[in-house]
């Protein structure tokens, strides 16, 4: 490859990478700032009051919790980690992690803008919730958090039964400005820690985009099963923020089946290159595998089912 050709390719690679990063970074900032605020303003007791002791019901609550936090998949990981350490049960945390990138006001608004009120909008919201809660519920079967989380992310106090013990109420009398500065400090550290996964994932996505011709992937758009697999693969490859991926999916409505578009919109926000790397910063590898495979299976099945049984 000649020097100019290499520079051209590198320029494309760099433009794509920076496009992803510049777009995602503000959301990561939102997520880490929210996370820092949660750390300084929320006491551990708060969660035990809201969330049921029953881990399966907790998964449901976790799934719905997303409506309170408007973050995309970049920002949700540091926030979830913070919530775990604040005492949110793992089943709820996983459900939250998977549903929050879709079940929030910004994403609902953008999906509505792109597709209007219809099967795509409701399918996206409903199925994302269902799959997220189901995956969270599966995690409820593992009673020992230390088998799922990396050591440094374990909740602060865990009793022998695995249930969180409520510590004696510790009144935090630090003045608010001090708390804010502390929250800011936490946000910075988290931005760097999560940011490296974002950078690495963005580099990977840009590399694949620069060197795998899109035409190779897109020649398989009509089959009820293959279209689903292709768009799911594309969702992972493109790693686009859930707040805007509805507009990307719009580009496929002419050629791809509705089931595949839904699978793209459901699985993409849950798992892609950059978010997988971020998961690995919070959970153990086996847990991450479950977090990828279970939603993958359910998304693909949902997509294929819709293609074969409905005329959407």
């Amino acid at each position, binding site marked *: 490859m000649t020097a100019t*050709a290499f520079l*051209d*390719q*590198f*320029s*494309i690679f*760099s*433009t*794509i*990478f*920076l*496009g*992803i*990063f*510049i*777009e995602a*970074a*503000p959301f990561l*900032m939102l997520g*880490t*700032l929210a996370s820092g605020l949660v750390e300084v303003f929320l006491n551990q007791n708060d969660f035990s009051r809201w969330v049921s002791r029953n881990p399966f019901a907790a998964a449901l609550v976790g799934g719905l919790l997303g409506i309170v936090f408007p973050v995309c998949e970049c920002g949700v990981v540091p926030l979830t980690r913070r919530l775990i350490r604040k005492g949110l049960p793992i089943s709820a945390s996983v459900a939250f992690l998977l549903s929050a990138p879709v079940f929030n006001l910004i994403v609902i608004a953008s999906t509505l*803008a*792109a*597709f*209007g009120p219809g099967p795509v909008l409701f399918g996206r919201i409903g199925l994302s919730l269902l799959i997220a809660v189901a995956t969270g519920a599966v995690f409820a079967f593992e009673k020992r958090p230390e088998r799922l989380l990396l050591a*440094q992310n374990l909740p*602060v106090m865990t009793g022998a039964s695995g249930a969180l013990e409520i510590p004696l109420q510790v009144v935090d009398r630090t003045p608010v400005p001090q708390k804010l*500065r*502390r929250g*800011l*400090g*936490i*946000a*910075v*550290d988290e*931005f*760097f*820690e999560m*940011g*490296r996964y974002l*950078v*690495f994932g963005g580099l990977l*996505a840009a590399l694949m*985009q*620069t*060197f795998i*011709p*899109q035409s190779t992937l*897109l020649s398989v758009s009509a089959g009820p099963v293959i279209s689903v697999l292709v768009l799911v693969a594309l969702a992972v490859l*493109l*790693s*686009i*923020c859930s707040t*805007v991926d509805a*507009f*990307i999916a*719009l*580009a496929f409505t*002419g*050629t791809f089946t509705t089931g595949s578009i839904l699978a793209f919109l459901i699985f993409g926000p849950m798992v892609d290159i950059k978010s997988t790397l971020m998961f690995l910063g919070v959970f153990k590898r086996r847990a991450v595998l479950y977090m990828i495979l279970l939603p993958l299976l359910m998304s693909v099945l949902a997509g294929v089912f819709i293609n074969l049984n409905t005329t959407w």
Partner: protein
Amino acid sequence: MNKYYRWTQVIIMLAFGLYLAERLWSGAVFFYINERFLPLIAFGALGALVLAGGALWLARQNNEYDHHHHDHDHDHEHAHAPQRFPLGTVLLAALPVLLGVLIPARPLGATAIDQKGLNMTGPLTVSGGAAATKLEIAPEKRTILDWMRAFNYAADPAEFTHQPADVVGFVYRPEQLADTQFLVSRFVVTCCAADGSAVGLLVEWPEAAGLEENGWVRVRGPVSVGALDGRPIPLITAASIEPVPQPDQPYMYP
């Protein structure tokens, strides 16, 4: 927490914030993202500076958030032992700014089309009521994207024959075209450069072979129905081709 790491955090966040601010100011940010995200990027620049401030405060406070919390995010056990400088994290964190500053900012162009392919139908769907208004645009005012849409939505593309076209795009000449043809193209970006897909119109111009690849031109002429790879595509029999400077916003937004 390593003291030098704190200061590099400050530098990197500051650099990133200033980088974003400069790109916003110069307009080069339009090479990377859709224009409607400008407020978001502005927030990003601000957020980066705020985070830089946070890191600065920590650097001057000697890195301790406070002393009675031991739920550290990072993997060290002893709060007060000197820490290794996390070179890997720093390099990764610095990479976006380095790439952004060292590589001259350029929008996606002809070489990227070789990579990503030309999109004949993709980002042409328009949601809901906007479809009707988009198709009512006068022919001379149609952009490349408008023309592609019109062709795709019309029952019979032949209805556009003899309509005048006046479009701006860059020159792209794939091998399969004759010497007197080229594609006047532009990238359509929905969210950011990562999803950019190129659209183009076929142009018939005797001196096509002499045009600079990737150069920006304004093409004027009557439209007829041409074909590319077996699909109908607007064909402009150019009456005039004039080189123009690269537009401030090189991408089109669906």
